[in-house]
């Protein structure tokens, strides 16, 4: 019910943003960021409610992960407005809102059962919580970078391209260390504590490594090519698709140690 209310608020926020696109008077949109903030707060309440119910931080299933990611994106959308990151373009929060809505739609689908279940022994670890939360915070920034990279590829205006490039780079530069810590370092420490192995070449681990290598390649390519090559933003777009495949695709197409995720 709480997640559904957040979903409705995000849809309303999206409609408000669309209306603002078509308004002739270029007045700032002061409504949708607050709707996103309330949606994010509601999703946070849902996570806290489930955490109290299972007496553990509710980040151990697909439903909870999707709700957490949507929550982060909603809060990030508000932060873009609050810190004026998106003062020059309105498509960035628009794209982030769409992605948050997609995550919530997936959370309400049969692929993500919402039944509240306390975690089995392997999932009762502080390292798991760090692993999942840091990974998703990193991926929320990757989502912003993804939208910005698409805009960068589509625009023909050099100044706008430069501005989008900066936003893309900022998002990835912030998300990358957080993702590195979460997906690779905390994930490996948890695996060692739970199974006695840092790394097992499990499909989820392999695809997380592919995500990390892709963004590593982006950061190094941007160092060499700056804003002169279409390949630079293209790598960010590829990286986000790989990240989403790691998050969702691996769960449904492959089996491994992360089959409960």
């Amino acid at each position, binding site marked *: 019910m709480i997640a559904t209310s957040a979903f409705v608020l995000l849809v309303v926020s999206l409609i408000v943003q669309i209306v603002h696109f078509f308004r002739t008077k270029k007045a700032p949109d002061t409504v949708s960021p607050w709707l996103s903030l309330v949606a994010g707060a509601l999703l946070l309440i849902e996570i806290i409610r489930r955490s109290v119910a299972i007496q553990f931080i509710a980040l151990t299933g697909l439903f909870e992960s999707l709700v957490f990611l949507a929550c982060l994106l909603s809060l990030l959308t508000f932060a873009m407005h609050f*810190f004026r*990151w998106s003062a*020059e373009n309105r498509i960035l929060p628009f794209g982030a809102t769409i992605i948050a809505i997609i995550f919530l739609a997936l959370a309400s689908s049969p692929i993500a059962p919402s039944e509240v*279940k*306390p975690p*089995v*022994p*392997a999932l*009762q*670890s502080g*390292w798991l919580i760090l692993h999942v939360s840091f990974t998703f915070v990193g991926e929320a920034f990757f989502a912003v970078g993804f939208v910005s990279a698409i805009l960068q590829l589509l625009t023909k205006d050099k100044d706008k391209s430069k*501005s989008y490039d*900066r*936003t893309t*780079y*900022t998002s990835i*530069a*912030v998300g*990358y*260390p957080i993702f*590195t*810590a979460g997906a*690779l*370092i905390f994930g*490996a*420490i*948890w695996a060692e*504590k*739970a*199974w*006695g192995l*840092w*790394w097992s*070449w499990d*499909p989820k681990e*392999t*695809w997380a*490594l*592919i995500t990390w*290598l*892709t963004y*590593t*390649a982006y950061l*190094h*390519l941007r*160092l*060499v090519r700056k804003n002169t090559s279409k390949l630079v933003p293209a790598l960010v777009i590829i990286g986000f698709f790989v990240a989403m495949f790691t998050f969702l695709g691996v769960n449904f197409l*492959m089996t491994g140690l992360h089959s409960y995720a």
Partner: protein
Amino acid sequence: MKSYLDRLYDALRSVKLAIVLLVVLVLFAVAGGVIPQGKPVDFYTTQFGGSISNLIVLLGLNHVFSSLAFLIAAALFAVNLTVCTFHRLTLEIGKPWEKRRHGPDILHVGILILLFGGILTARTRTETILEVQKGQAAALPDGSTLVLTDFDFETYPDGRPKNWVSTVTIGTQTQRQIKVNSPLREHGYSIYQKYWKNETNVILLDPTGMEITLRQGMRQPTMDGFVFFMAVSTDYSSPAQSPGSTSIGSNSLSENNPVFLVEDHNKRLVIKAYEGDKVGPFIYKGRVENSISGLAVVSDKGYPYVVAGFVLVALGVFLTYVQKLKGLVP
């Protein structure tokens, strides 16, 4: 005009080479992520058909991460990273302290130490599985004795496992607990709570009336042979007899009865026993269910290097983040 050595040095430290190698490693990892790894050749033939499975096996894509091509690419990446780190570090050291940015250097050194630790782990890690019943002892690889003094298995109301806790002593030390996600590090080993299972033990009475407990797979010597506890039968019929053997015991409908192999004067019998039945020179008294704690005893020489690598990588990304963040927000 640069010497060959200088040109080689420049090539090995170049960011372009790093990007090419990263892309190559991505391609290998995608192959390893899409194609199931380490399966028998027949599996690939069934899944992908003859010609594709032949190609997979020929290119080593059935074991990508231990294939020569992947290892060469990874080794080249390590060389590139080493030379690049050395070059960058020497440049940074030449700068005034306040202008130095050592984040990427620490990150790169961390990755190199991580690679070294990973290789050491892969080559030296050993894992021994101990299956111990409550009150029983088991020998660790170094000869010291582990005693399982207690074992708790908690479940949620819906039957799913909640917690497994083994309480152990090693040598003369005080009691310590081993839980899932909370291994015991002792005597240079890490001991993990790997699994839990129930095991059926059978109780036999010898001719003097003394109880002998047998675990499944154990044999008890007798004067003229042995009695071997094979399995617990869940069939409602008596087991098939081995050639030249005869079956002892009732054929009435029952289940969960132990099956023994009895050797007596070189003659072997397979027996499904019921309480009070004669099994060789013994009388089958009954069975008991015991909880078995599965503990993995791991020795890993790469452990401290991997930990040090992680610390440096975390420190490196944090420093890089802090040094860059201020100027990044548009």
